[in-house]
């Protein structure tokens, strides 16, 4: 069965800490892995990763994919209270019977950054 697992499910850190969020997956015909941030509203897109070992960066956030070990990490350095959110990992994989590349979301990691 195709699945996406995230860990930890929740995390509390102090401002300035560095955090690492994990996403592992088991899917057939992997296409891409996506990270989203969800505050008290709709998810917003962060990164899309398709190749192993190539780091994507945006400010204090970075992410990397390991297609051999089937996981990705999302790093946040020098955390701020504004980083408090649920971080969702999603994996797109090819559905051979349809025209759609199915996207499966993990349950999310709830991050709380306290002053």
């Amino acid at each position, binding site marked *: 069965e195709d699945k996406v697992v995230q860990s930890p499910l929740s995390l509390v850190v102090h401002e300035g800490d560095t955090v690492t969020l994990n996403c592992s997956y088991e899917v057939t015909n992997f296409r*891409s892995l*996506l990270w989203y941030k969800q505050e008290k509203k709709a998810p917003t*897109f962060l990164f899309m990763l398709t190749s192993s070992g190539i780091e994507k960066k945006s400010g204090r956030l970075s992410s990397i994919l390991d297609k051999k070990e089937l996981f990705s990490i999302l790093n946040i350095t020098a955390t701020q209270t504004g980083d408090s959110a649920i971080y969702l990992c999603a994996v797109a994989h090819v559905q051979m019977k349809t*025209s759609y*590349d*199915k*996207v499966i*979301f993990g*349950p999310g990691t709830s991050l709380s950054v306290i002053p």
Partner: protein
Amino acid sequence: DAGITQSPRHKVTETGTPVTLRCHQTENHRYMYWYRQDPGHGLRLIHYSYGVKDTDKGEVSDGYSVSRSKTEDFLLTLESATSSQTSVYFCAISTTGLPYNEQFFGPGTRLTVL
């Protein structure tokens, strides 16, 4: 925000009643999706559309139907609402024209079925 709106934003209804949620986009993106989000489950795909009148089922489609008669509108109907369909519903679009690239989400509809 990719010009996505959802209506209504909140709805309370009773078991057994039909409910229709609307997703509207202001740009002519081909791919549109309906998800539900429940605690501990992340986002689960209900139905998606890859063009006008072209739709297909997602992983949790039972009890739901969709229609897309115009590019800009994607409707989700709960044929006979049940309490298990109490959830937050998100519409999403793919802006790049490919189904597996990043999706942009609408603001969500919180539905409560009593």
